[in-house]
């Protein structure tokens, strides 16, 4: 167990610089977005009152109140989120290939460690999960801070205060944000359960490639296609026949099957096919 945590810590440390950059970029751009959009709104408000000669009521009626909704739908808010998602997807590949193609083919040392090789697989997955959820948790805190900044900058009669949950719930309906910050705990398990299953499938596909090289590319792609097809099969085959709640239960069973198979296959490849 100790080796596992050591490996997780090791993986986190290796990505920590990029991770800090991602956090820094998100904080700076999103706080900037909040300040700039609030300021633009207030400038517009001043202009409308002085030059269009609108009353406050007329202005609100025409242009609406300011809220975090405007901020979260802006480009500056979403760019760091997209960038972080792309970076973490890229890192899912990099976390394995750097061990082979890095300076000292580090993978040989890792595979020689006196610990079950599956720990290597799990530690890399755990590092990815921690980094993904850590970034999302940071986003939640940032949204609360942004809400407070909005309160400082925009007068109460010109703004609507939304909690994080209101922002992602049906009332406001920022559904893009609700993908990464699910509205309920069950949805949280569903969204990130699917994400983690995808990571395990990808890891196993990478290990196919590492085990069989050129032939392994096709095996890896084939494995990923088959795994995804199995998981989605009830939606295509029996989507009309099963009731939604039955479809969900079948989905959970297939999720466990695909995730379990991916881990088992990863273990097999690491132990039997990848040689030092």
């Amino acid at each position: 167990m100790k080796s596992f945590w050591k490996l997780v810590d090791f993986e986190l440390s290796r990505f920590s610089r990029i991770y800090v950059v991602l956090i820094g970029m998100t904080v700076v751009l999103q706080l900037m977005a909040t300040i700039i959009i609030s300021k633009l709104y207030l400038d517009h408000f001043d202009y409308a009152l002085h030059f269009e000669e609108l009353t406050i009521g007329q202005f609100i009626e025409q242009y609406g109140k300011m809220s975090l909704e405007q901020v979260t739908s802006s480009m500056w808010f979403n760019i760091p989120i997209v960038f972080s998602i792309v970076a973490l997807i890229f890192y899912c590949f990099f976390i394995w290939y750097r061990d082979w193609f890095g300076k000292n083919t580090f993978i040989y040392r890792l595979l020689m460690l006196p610990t079950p090789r599956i720990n290597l697989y799990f530690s890399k997955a755990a590092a990815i999960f921690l980094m993904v959820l850590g970034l999302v948790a940071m986003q939640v805190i940032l949204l609360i801070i942004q809400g407070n900044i909005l309160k400082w900058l925009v007068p109460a009669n010109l703004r609507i205060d939304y909690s994080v949950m209101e922002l992602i719930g049906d009332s406001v309906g920022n559904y893009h944000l609700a993908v990464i910050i699910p509205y309920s705990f069950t949805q949280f398990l569903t969204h990130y359960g699917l994400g983690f299953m995808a990571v395990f499938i990808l890891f196993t596909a990478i290990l196919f490639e590492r085990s069989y090289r050129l032939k392994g590319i096709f095996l890896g792609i084939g494995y990923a296609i088959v795994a995804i097809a199995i998981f989605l099969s009830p939606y295509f085959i029996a989507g009309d026949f099963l009731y939604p709640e039955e479809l969900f239960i079948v989905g959970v069973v297939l999720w466990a099957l695909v995730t379990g198979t991916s881990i088992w296959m990863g273990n097999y490849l690491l132990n039997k096919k990848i040689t030092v």
Partner: protein
Amino acid sequence: MKRYWKIIGLVLLIFGTFGSLYIHKALAQVALPEFELVTISGDETILEEMIVYGDFTQESSWESFRLTSDEITYFRDLNFLEQHRGFFQPWTIEWLIEEERNFMRGKSYFPDVFAEDDGKIAYVSPYMSNGLDEFRVEILNRETRDKQKFALDFSSDEELREIHVLNVQLYGNAMYLITINHYPDEKEFHVYEISLEEEKIVNDDTVVEIEHDHHINLFNLTTDISFQEYIIVGIEYVEYDEATYYYHVVDEEIYSYHLPTGEIQPIDIPEGFTTYPDDPFDEEQLDVGFIAVGKEHVHFVEYTSDGLRYVSYDLGKNKQEGEKEVILGEAEVAGLSGLYPAGNRIYLYTKTEDDSNRIRKMMVVDLADGDLVSEVEIKLSEAPKETMVYDVDIFSIQEK
């Protein structure tokens, strides 16, 4: 331990943030009010048949609910699996799924394509388009549990492009399929009679043939899947107005089709009655009338300043009856915010003020008798806060 500060920090951040987020949400969720249906006057049994689908709104947030005489259920309070069970689907479908879960598998969630008569339920697959020239028919005998399945073949009609099933009726050993058939140059309103013994179409009546620009409307209440003897179809003839870039209704015709005999009768529309405003962008719903269809009558209803005025057409006798009036009250008409026909009954949702209290009530009018049969209030029975500014919007009222 110090060595693992990154892991510990991230785990604490993740659990702390998401834990407090979902715990806070769960705690905040307690704060939804309870409403109940209370009879103000008239028939006290009516509220037992009602299901009110609506939204509780407060400031910028809203929560969907279903309100019956027993309880209020908020969509938000259902668990994950329950939320997938079709909270907003028509009561008829919910009832069918509850009663005949296996039969309902893989079938449409629109009641229009189901019919019920004499212990049998019929279903017709909902549409046909290019490349698919069969309709799947399934009949379940609820007593014997026998299932009958067969297909209706329309491939011999080569010109036919698409069929939309508007309604299905079941009467003894006959099933009726009410469709709009699309041809290259026109569309037609058909009533097909299907013999359940022979499993084939035994009669095909074309009730209406018009160009594609004009509209065909079925006025029957399609949430009621029990047998309706008369099919009421309306045609709206439209003309394109280049000034407004809008198709204006220039003429309306209504016909009844008697299913057992196949008799088609034109229905006289009362003079001056229209369901369309002169200005199509006029949002004032009180300017135009509406048509409600019961099993034996068609009602042409218009608003007055204090109620409803309507003319009923007796389908059996093929004649108009005298004008009737139902007094609702000026404030009630002014505060009208929704109208929900249910055969001979209509439910009017209105919001009025009484000593600075807002009263939200449904007024149930029986058009066959011309009576206001019941007034049912949506009453706040338990509020989470002492003072609360809120509203209740209704998007559907159905009868169980």
